């Protein structure tokens, strides 16, 4: 139904070396609030057609960074360039050319979906029709419903539609699925996928690693106001060293607390790293089928049992844990 054409060349712009145009450029960005340095010397480039994700725990500085990009917060230091324009000289033009979805905007509850979109459409000189934005966000059945009666997922899709009515070249999504149930999240992901397919440049923040992995061409992992790792999800995951994570707990034959000789575990060929989290041992491993039997052997030799044995493919969560020693969800 959408009239946008599929731009295959846009999708392939994964690496900054592809020679396409720069959509976003941040240099030496800094922003301090009274009690905390929210953004601490941040550099970033996002290419046209790319879907870029800022991943990090709450309080990492993601929202401050994205609000500086959106021209809502003035940085203490650093350069911000969007579509080759700066907020200082090109604010009016930029507002026309970007689309924004903020965290926790509550639209007036007594307006209908259509009325809300009509209002936002009126702010833009050019853009898609209100009908088209309703179709894109799949809110056809709700177009005459009041905003107050929408579900969380529908409200979030309305926020997306409001960001899309101006047919933006650059789209900012700040934690688009936070607080949504799994089904609504997947629905919203499909919508972002569509926008990606259409070749739009998207910059989103999230603290869900699965979201970043699923949606983003490139991810920057943020912690304490800095980007601590940057790359495609496969690149970042490869940086953990192993593609698989083995988790297990150990028990002895009696009730006494037991410990396992960690040096013997890390000596196993293919084991890249080891850590203990809440009593669970975690090993990153390159080849499961050769390594797991050896882990059993090491434990058996020390008279220990392995329990709760689990393996999974390494994720961005593991990348974050590896870099910071903390979980993404730790507060």
């Amino acid at each position, binding site marked *: 139904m959408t009239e946008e054409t599929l731009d295959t060349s846009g999708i392939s712009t994964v690496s900054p070396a592809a020679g396409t145009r720069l959509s976003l450029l941040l240099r030496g960005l800094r922003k301090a609030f009274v009690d905390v340095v929210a953004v601490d010397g941040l550099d970033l480039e996002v290419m046209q057609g790319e879907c870029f994700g800022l991943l990090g725990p709450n309080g990492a500085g993601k929202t401050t960074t994205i609000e500086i990009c959106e*021209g809502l917060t003035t940085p203490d230091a650093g350069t911000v360039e969007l579509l080759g324009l700066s907020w200082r000289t090109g604010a009016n033009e930029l507002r*026309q050319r970007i689309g*924004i979805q*903020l*965290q926790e905007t509550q639209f*007036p509850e007594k*307006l209908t979906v259509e009325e809300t979109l009509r*209002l936002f459409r*009126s702010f833009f000189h050019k853009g898609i029709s209100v009908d088209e934005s309703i179709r894109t966000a799949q809110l056809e059945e709700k177009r005459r419903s009041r905003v107050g009666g929408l579900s969380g997922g529908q409200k979030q899709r309305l926020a997306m539609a409001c960001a899309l009515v*101006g047919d933006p070249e650059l789209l900012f999504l700040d934690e688009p699925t936070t607080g949504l149930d799994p089904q609504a999240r997947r629905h919203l992901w499909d919508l972002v996928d569509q926008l990606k397919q259409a070749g739009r440049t998207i910059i989103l923040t999230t603290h869900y690693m699965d979201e970043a992995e699923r949606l983003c061409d490139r991810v920057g992992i943020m912690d304490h106001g800095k980007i601590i790792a940057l790359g495609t999800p496969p690149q970042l995951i490869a940086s953990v060293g192993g593609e698989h994570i083995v988790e297990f707990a150990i028990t002895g034959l009696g009730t006494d607390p037991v410990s396992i000789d960690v040096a013997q575990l890390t000596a196993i060929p293919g084991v890249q790293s080891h850590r203990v989290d809440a009593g669970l041992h975690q090993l990153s491993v390159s080849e499961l089928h050769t390594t797991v039997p050896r882990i059993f052997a090491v434990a058996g030799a020390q008279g220990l049992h392995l329990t709760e044995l689990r393996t999974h493919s390494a994720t961005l969560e593991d990348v974050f844990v590896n870099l910071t020693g903390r979980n993404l969800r730790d507060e």
Partner: protein
Amino acid sequence: MNKLQLSSLYQLTLVRFRLFLREPEAIFWIFIFPILLALGLGIAFRNRPADVLQVGATTTHLTDALAADKGLKATTMSEAAGTHALATGDILLLAIETSDGVTYKFDDTNPDARIARLVADRAIQAAAGRNEVVRSRNQLIHEAGARYIDFVVPGLLGMNLMGSAIWGLGFSIVEARQKKLLKRLVASPMPRWQYLASFLLSRLVMLVIEILAFLGFARLVFGVPFRGSLWQLAFLCVLTSLSFSALGLLIASRAKTMEAASGLMNLVMLPMWILSGVFFSATRFPAVIQPVIRALPLTAAIDALRGNMLQGMNLAQLTAPVAILLAWLAFPFAISLRIFRWK
């Protein structure tokens, strides 16, 4: 879509109307409440025909003499029964025939009882054949324009213009700020001045309905007079509404929560409800604070409205209150534009 629908100022103003009309409580407070208040006050303070005073007398002879006066309703009763009736308030005065004349039993701290004493004595003396030394005649006036309802209608109009402007702007803006809608609007290419202008535009349209309903009611039901020019009255209403809108904008320019805003609004409006002469003349307050009272926007508004409606004054005679209202329009508006918190 036509051109009008694509205009953001039109859409913003339309949104203001929709949100207002979908809020039944707001409609009650702005359109219905002032009419109910005027109706209540009009009934409570209506000019009634002079009351007939209830009195008692111990003999039929006295009762007949008292009943001759149309202002009295007399009943014959024993002295004991009469004393009881006095205590329960059934009668205001008991005339007791004595050997050498008549004794009036009444409570002299009750004004009605004192009147009953005068009227009863006049009736009894006249029945006994007293001649008046000076001939007197009564000329009665029940003229529109001098009644309490005439006084209070311009007061209620001013109060209503204040309330609807301050509440209308204040709550909507602070709510939008608290719900992060203001931030979202600022993130869009919406021209900021249009957001504020949409409030003023919708206010002006609502004002017409509000004033026509209220003054129409006052005219039809109570016959409240309009002695001044109606165009000048309309101008005064618009000026008043704009001044209070500027004040509402100032109140809303920084407040982050509805609680803070509503506290500020009450702080601003409560003194004016009391001091500005809505229900009784502001001149009753001590001379020391009169300059302060005169400088309040609601005092100026009500003075101007009363001057126009009751005394038929024209704008040239109302320069002082109009100048005060203009000052209350200009300064709060300028300040709030400087300090307005958009996020």
